[in-house]
């Protein structure tokens, strides 16, 4: 019976549409179950995970001291040449020459947030920050010097 089969198909088709529309209508009337991130408005309350990889920062303590020895382990670990370490020779109180960090140049525009530099650092001088809004007006602003001006290496870090 072709006709009966045809009519059955029409009705089962209509039923399948009704089932789908019922689900749509359910969400239409239940606003609470729809999750939407109100992103730019919730900046104050937005809390990202501690491990979120936003950008590389260097840790400084209250005496403006960091733990970077200038060993270039991060520079070697980086796949994209994001990090460039410029060292200088400091004169220690004993009158000896000692290699120390001059500038920790970080190219944010080249960084892929792979975390290899953080893992490679023997003194935990750098870490990943949770910032993610990196847009700037000029590309040169993305090249950063991570050690603060006038900062020194913390005593005891080798």
């Amino acid at each position: 019976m072709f006709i009966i089969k045809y009519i059955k198909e029409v009705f089962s088709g209509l039923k399948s549409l009704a089932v789908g529309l019922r689900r749509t209508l359910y969400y239409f009337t239940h606003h609470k179950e729809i999750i939407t991130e109100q992103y730019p408005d919730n900046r104050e309350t937005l809390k990202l995970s501690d491990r979120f990889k936003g950008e590389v920062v260097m840790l400084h303590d209250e005496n403006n001291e960091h733990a970077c020895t200038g060993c270039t382990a991060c520079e070697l670990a980086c796949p994209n040449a994001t990090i460039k370490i410029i060292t200088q020779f400091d004169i220690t109180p004993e009158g000896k020459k000692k290699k120390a960090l001059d500038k920790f140049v970080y190219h944010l525009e080249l960084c892929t947030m792979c975390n290899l530099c953080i893992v490679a650092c023997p003194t935990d001088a750098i870490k990943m920050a949770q910032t993610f809004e990196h847009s700037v007006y000029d590309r040169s602003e993305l090249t950063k010097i991570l050690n603060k001006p006038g900062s020194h290496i913390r005593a005891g870090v080798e």
Partner: protein
Amino acid sequence: MVEEIGTTVEGDVLINVGPQHPATHGVLNLLLTINGETIKKVEPHLGFIHRSIEKMCESLTYRQFIYVTSRMDYLSAHINNHACALVVEKGLQVEIPSRAKVIRVLMDELTRIASHELWWGAMAMDLGAFTPFFHAFRERESINDIMEETCGARLTMNYIVPGGVMYDLHPDFQKRVKDFITLYKLKIHEYDEMVTGNIIFQNRMKGVGYLSAEDAISYGCTGPTARGSGVSCDIRKLYPYEVYDQLDFDEILETGCDSFARYMVRIREMNQSIRIIEQLIDTIPEGDFQAKTKAVLKLPKGEFYQRVETARGEFGVYIVSEGGNTPYRIKFRSPGFSNLSALDQMARGSKLGDLVAMMGTLDLVIPDIDR
């Protein structure tokens, strides 16, 4: 173009789909030969997003080259990284701790669910249904949150390193994954209600894009594309790696050979992934998450190959080593490339409107095809 026009007959038209067409999911250019509404030939033109990843890897060390593979198949970035880590471990003959193995498999399966959910939403959108996309992203969001918490990134994780994983699991990981499983089981019936059972959807999928098992094998199709044609090709079953041989899960096979069969394979695969996660989540072994490896990894002279099952099919990494700390030659066998090559066979003789539906069921990720 002149030569291609020379092979056509009266009434044939050449049209370009892409590279900026939203339905191609990226920069893929399809040169179609159509006669009226009927497709006579499909020629995929590649190269719009070629980044020479294989050549680039030759200058990167064995720790560094892994992150690049996240940029190939970005929806199963984790599984790509897994393959790279496995091939390096194979060369180094490192035994990795059992905790790392379980973490890797858990992450792989979460990635697979996330990838299939995005595919489901995107494919429904290809067919003109916009709402499923938001429903799919709701579940995918909770996976992304889990990834963000443990791996530190939502898409390109770079969490798997040679010797294990980069850091230990987040303390909340187990709870979050269990919450996700509860959410998933609560919501998965909506997928069937909204899309699978829909008569319009079924009429557009059933009998469309026929790919026989012989063709699937000869084109080198893998993953859900081949399993929709009844070809058993799950690497997790055939060549088990990590702890897959101790797990209880089914290889999904459909024999419909059409678009709907490929659709059903992916929908059912998500449930299998949930099954795998449920088996592992309560029994994560204690111990180290990373084996001790040297600071500079040097593979012995020789050739190494490892394949894994990504969300799209078989992903293989082939390394030729000369004994140094960088590979001499590296080759990635990506699933998308072979699956795309079968599109011509599928689409010939069908209507132009069905092409997008066929492409949707292939689950193409263009950076994976082009590398």
